[in-house]
Structure formats: C-alpha cells, structure tokens
C-alpha cells in the first residue's frame, strides 16, 4: 500500500495548519489544545495554548515574552530527537532563522512533511544553520519570494554602518531591529567585525538580549539607552525597535542617523518612505536564490507556499517541475512584515 498523500492528513483550519492523525496544530494563530511551534516570533508562537511542543530555546523565548501565558504544559524537544503525538512522529531540524528556530518534520505511515516555518540559508552566529530534510511535501515561506530580493553579504552591510559612524562621529546611529533575532544578530556581527565599544539598547530589546546571553550567545557590553545622557550617546550605536527609530523616542539622541536593518531595505523607495538615512539590507528570511535553492536541496516533489509572494514562487516551482501551490494561513508574516 502506498503512503497516504499529505493532503489527506494535513488541513488548513481557521486556527492554522492542522495534523489529523496527531490532533495538533503547527504554529496556530489562536489558542488550541495542542500546538507544535517552530519558533518564537509572535506570528508563529501565540500565547495560551494548552500544550506546546517546541525546542528548549523557543520555549525559553515564549516564557520570556508571555510569562504565565506561555502555555499550559511546555514540552521541550531538541533538534534531532523524536516524539510521538497520536500516530505521528514529530522531530525538529534547525531552520537558521533565529535562536531555537526549527523546521517541524512530521511523519505518518511512511509519508513525510516538513513545515519549515521561517528560515534562511546564510550563516548566522546566533543560531545553528538550516538543514535540508528530504520529504514528500515541503512547506515553505515566501516573504521575499520575488527575484528582486537578493540579500547582499551581511558583512558588507555591517561595514556600511561602521563607515557611516566614522564619517559622522558627532551623530548617534540608531539602528532599527526587531527584538527577537535581528537585534542579537546585528550585535554579534558588529562584534565579529571588531566593534568592541558598548552598544546601547532600547528597553524593548533588553529581555531577549539577556536571554540570548544566558543561552550562550555572546553579545558583549550592552547599556540601556534610556538611562544614558544625550552627551554620552554622541557617536554611539543604539539599537531600537523599528517603531521607535524615527519617532518621539529617538529625540533623546544626538542628531540621529536613522538606520534600519531589514530585507525590505533592498527597495530604495521603501527605505525613503520610512525616512531611513542608512538602509542595511539584512534579513532573517531566505532571499529568492535561497528559496529556490532550498526547493532543489530538499527535493520534495510537492511544495506548499505560505506567507509572502506566494504566486511568484509557485510560478517558478511549477516551471521547474515541482507540484506547487499556495497555502493561505491567516495571520502569518505579521510580526516581521515591516522589518523582515
């Protein structure tokens, strides 16, 4: 007897992607009895699920963000370990997106589906690299699913920031980064480029930076931006959530250079609209070459495409001989929409 087609055992429901023989959801959008969570971003990890299965790092992130509302029972599962839920074998493979991010690998009666969550393929000093897992159906994101998106080398982008700092030593560089992943990656990359001065951070980044350090990611000296005087921050680099960099919060800074680290910065008009003076093209999502290469690496005959520019990636994949279709999931892509 041949393996059952994944369409027969995975469904989209209002709560999210549902696995019938396991009776659980993957990254549900609303609270459910049992959830498998790929990573800690708010559009994937929601509060108040009854039971949650995720990597230990993702659970730690959920606890830091949601505290007592992180979920009823939180069950850790390391990369590579297996856990049976109902009739389904579940395991996690690294997704290279943020600390703890995982692809959920589901197997039932000889058929295997990989739900990759969000992922990228390039090196990130804050988390283990993506591992391709052969499967029958690969579920991929498509945040940057257009061929205009080719993220440059992040070293080049970080050096742009340092060059600008040298050119404007009397100004404060305020860098917009989202709190989970991008902030810590930018800090780590600055350290790798030899920047060893203290970095100043907005209060909204503190908890997750602390957690990363506890989990062994070295970030160097961080100081709270709010507690520092305008004079002290002259010539410094400050990291803050994107919503704060061009708003009232930034007025405390000395003639700030507004910097934003995001894959969307590839498109100049977007950067100009946001009043960004120094765009850094850095994303934790796969760019177009990474997306297409991943479909080839994974080699799944069938591809389901979720959040982003699904139509273009579906079009490309069908042209390459994959069976591809869009899978619309509610609420996906919201957290990083602005700053992916």
């Amino acid at each position, binding site marked *: 007897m041949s393996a059952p087609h994944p369409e027969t055992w995975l469904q989209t429901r209002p709560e999210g992607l549902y696995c019938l023989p396991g009776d659980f959801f993957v990254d549900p959008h609303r609270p459910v009895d049992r959830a498998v969570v790929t990573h800690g971003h708010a559009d994937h990890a929601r509060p108040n699920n009854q039971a949650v299965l995720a990597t230990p790092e993702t659970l730690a992130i959920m606890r830091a963000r949601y505290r007592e509302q992180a979920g009823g029972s939180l069950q850790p599962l390391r990369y590579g370990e297996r856990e049976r839920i109902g009739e389904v074998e579940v395991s996690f493979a690294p997704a290279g997106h943020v600390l703890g991010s995982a692809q959920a690998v589901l197997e039932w009666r000889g058929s295997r589906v990989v739900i990759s969550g969000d992922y990228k393929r390039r090196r990130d000093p804050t988390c283990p690299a993506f591992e391709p897992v052969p499967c029958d159906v690969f579920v991929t994101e498509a945040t940057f699913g257009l061929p*205009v998106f080719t993220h440059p080398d992040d070293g080049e982008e970080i050096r742009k920031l340092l060059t600008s700092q040298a050119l404007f030593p009397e100004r404060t560089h305020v860098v917009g980064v989202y709190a989970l992943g991008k902030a810590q990656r930018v800090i780590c990359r600055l350290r790798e480029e030899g920047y060893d001065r203290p970095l100043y951070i907005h209060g909204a980044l503190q908890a997750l930076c602390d957690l990363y350090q506890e989990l062994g990611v070295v970030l160097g000296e961080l100081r709270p931006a709010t507690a520092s005087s305008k004079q002290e921050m002259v010539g410094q680099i400050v990291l803050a959530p994107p919503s704060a960099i061009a708003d009232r919060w930034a007025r405390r800074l000395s003639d700030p250079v507004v910097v934003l680290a995001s894959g969307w910065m590839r498109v100049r008009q977007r950067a100009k609209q946001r*009043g960004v003076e120094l765009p850094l093209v850095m994303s934790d999502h796969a760019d177009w070459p990474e997306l297409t290469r991943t479909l080839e690496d994974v080699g799944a005959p069938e591809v389901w495409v979720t959040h982003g520019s699904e139509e273009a990636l579906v079009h490309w994949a069908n042209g390459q001989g994959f069976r591809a279709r869009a899978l619309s999931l509610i609420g996906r892509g919201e957290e990083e929409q602005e700053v992916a």
Partner: protein
Amino acid sequence: MKDFAALLDALIFTPSRNGKLRHMQAYFATAEDPHRGWGLAGLTGGLDFKSAKPALVRALVEERVDPALFRWSYDFVGDLAETVALIWPARPGANRPPSLDEVVTRLRLAGKSEVPGLLAGWLDALDATGRWALLKLITGGLRVGVSARLAKTALAEFGQVDVAEIEEIWHGLEPPYGPLFDWLEGRGERPEPNESVAFRPMMLANPLEDRDFESLDFAAYLAEWKWDGIRVQLVARNGERRLYSRTGDDIGRAFPDIIEAMDFEAVLDGELLVVRDGQVAPFNDLQQRLGRKTVSAKLLDSNPAHVRLYDMLFEGGEDIRPLRLDERRQRLESWYGAGRPRFDLSPVLSVAGREALAGLRAEARTAGIEGLMLKRADSAYVAGRPKGPWFKWKRDPLTLDVVLMYAQRGHGKRSSFYSDYTFGAWRDSEAGAELVPVGKAYFGFTDEELRQLDKWVRDNTVDRFGPVRAVAPGLVLEVAFDAVHPSTRHKSGLAMRFPRVKRIRWDKPADEADRVETLAALVETA
C-alpha cells in the same frame, strides 16, 4: 564604479546638506583619478555621452528574466531602473566590474548600436548597487538631490579653497579635471580661468535688518527696485555668449531669445524676467521657461524673456569691477545708449531721505517687485556677500489665516516630527463650506512650536496615508507669503510664493479662518 555607486546611494538617502557635503568630500578624498573627476562631472551635469532609453533597458532584461516574474517584481518595486538593477541575474564568470573611467570613455566613443552590448556586459559584472548607478547614469539624470553648486562646495571644502575660486575657473575646465585635483591637492598651479566666457562669482546683498535701518547713512546709497525674477550674468566675449544663473549654472539653452540678442562684448549683471508689452509678468511665467533643454517657438512667443540690467563687470576686455558702483553705472548707461532689444536698465530711484525710502518700499506692490535694493555708490564689485555695501530690503509679506489640513513627516533631524503642513482656506460648495488646500509650509516656527504642532497633529489625526496624516479642521495658522498667482496645478486655482508659518493661532476658531476669495483678491495684476 563601486565607490561612485556607493556615493550616489548614500546621497539619495541623506537628507541634510551637511551630510551630503560630508559624503562627497569623503568620495573626493578616497576615489582615484581619473574616476573621481568623472564622478564630479556626473554630479555637476557635465557628462555627455550616448544615453540609453528605458525601452532598451527593458528589452535587455526581458531577454534574461521570466516575463511573469519580471512583471510581479516591477509591480512591487515600481521603478524600472531599480527593478532591473535588482533582478538582473548574476552571470558566473563575469567578475570584472568596469571602472567609472571605462564606462564613461567607452560610452563617449561608442556608436549607437554598440550601447546595448556594452551595457549588458557591464550589468553582468556589477553588483546590484553598481547596476543601479550605471542605469541612472546611462538613462540620464542622477537625481540624487545635489546641485552643481553643492558639489563644487564639497570640492572647495575638500581642497580648502573658497568656492568662488572654483566657480571662477570652472568654465575653463574639462572632465575628468586632472589639473583641478592637482591644484586642490597641492601638486599643481591653479588652472587659469578661460577668460573669454568664464562666470564671475556674483556680489550678493544682505537683508536689511531693523537695526541697520536705524544706523544706515542713506545719502551714501543708491536705491533700485528689487525685481522678482532671476539674477543672471550675461557674458559675451570673442563671439561666444553665455547666460549664467546666480550659482554659475549655464542656463543659456533655456533662453535662446536672450542669447540671440547678446550682440555685444561685455559682462553684465541683471534680472531675468518675462516681459509682455512692457509689463513684467508673474514669476510663474518665468518658471515655465526654466530648466528646459529646448524651448518651443510657441513658448518663446507667449513668454518672452527679457533682462533688466543693473551692473556692468567688464566692458569689452576691460575689467571694471574695481570701479565704484556709480562709475560702473555711468559706463553701463553710456554703453546702453538709446536702447537695445530685450534689455532695459533698472532705474536708479531718487529718494529724499529715510521716510521717503520707507514709503517707496511700502508702495512696492505691483507685479514683479519684491522690495528695494540699497547699494553703496562707492562699492567695488566683489565676489560673495560682504556685509555693508549692498542690502536687500524686501517689502512686508502678505498674510492669510488658514486651516491645517494635512501634515507630513519631515526629513533628517525632523523625521520624528510632523513638520510639513498643507493648509486650506474656506469656500462654499453645494454641501456647505469646504476647505480647499491653498499651500504648503514647512518652516517659520520655532523648535518648541514644532513640538506643539507635532503633538496637535498626533492628537487630531483622522486618517493616515503613509507618512501623511489628515487632521480634523481645528487649527488656524497665520501664514506669510511673498505673492500669489493663478495656477492650474492647484485645486484652488492659486499658488503662493514662498509661504511660511508666521504665527500659530491657537486662539482662533477654524471657521473664522480666511476664504479662498480673500486670497484670490491678492493676485497682483500688472
């Protein structure tokens, strides 16, 4: 090409003048010859080579990219050059990006049919920013918010010389400006100006402040009207003719009627105007003639250009700038003689004293007059803006009470503030009174007032469109402006010249603000 591309990229995102200067200086200091000279030529509009039409660029990319993917991408990005720069597929092996010198020199020599091949080869070898810069160069118009003047200012700061010195020799120089950089870096002599048609940096006036008015020795000054046109310098030598703006930009191409009439040997200073039947037309009519590469016969006929002369710098080959103003004036008058088509003389006004002068200024309300100029009779013509010899004394501005309608985020230091304000005046419609936008202002207020305005905008927002907020009609601004003229581009049919916020009328109810008809009544008729 890489450093030039990085410079252009930085310039388009840098809102402040100082920031732009800093980027350009860093470029001049680090880029090498001859590339930086070509870069300078690009910034000052001095590159001249075979350009490519957007259609050619599009055709090239469509040979390489799936059309559906291209269409979706173009829809998303919105700009053709940028879409092409981003989507152009990397070609393995094409790893030697061209230098700026290679791009410029090969394009100068290339035949039209060679351009597509050259362009495609370069696009293969450059990275995304390099491709974007190349496409901007080759499709004409860098549009990075840098004037020729600003680029020269950066160059002057880089070489620690006065920008007037660079202006003085500029028109004798050719890209890629080797001798210029040699001089600025102390390796060579200052290049000699091309005497025949060089721009001579202008002498500029300071605004007359109240305290100057009290202490001024009026008897020592000559008065003239301050005309509402564009200050120009006319240079005609050895059969060559140039028309320069105040910043030394050659604007002759937009004014062939003036160039044609320059059948003399002199350097003159005057005001460019549109004059019909002896009457100065509104500034807007002159505006339509500006910035054009060619002018239609129709426009030449409907908006005829004219220069009202007020000073003479050279007569023939003789430099008379060291002479006193009243002596130069005499030379100008005897040279002018009985008259010359397209030119007339700006009259010297006779004034009995301080009161008479103030009265004259108050009357200066006919079209084309902005106020008075006061120039010391004994002043030599010197470059720059020396304090004392020349004053401009603008008439009091017009004012109107208007209602704030929209606010937009500013740039640079002001990017966290809603600092650009669109305001309206009332008019009757079938549905009752409605506000119609009549202008836009983004200065005139203090930092503290900006904070208050910003807060008011945030508290009274009724709608948002990207960086713009629409606000409830509740705040009255007193705006000042120099003039108002009819305009088909504005919904109200009127456009203000130089509007600024004079006062915030926190006290005034919005329904007591002014009406569009009040503004219309201020339109000046000749």
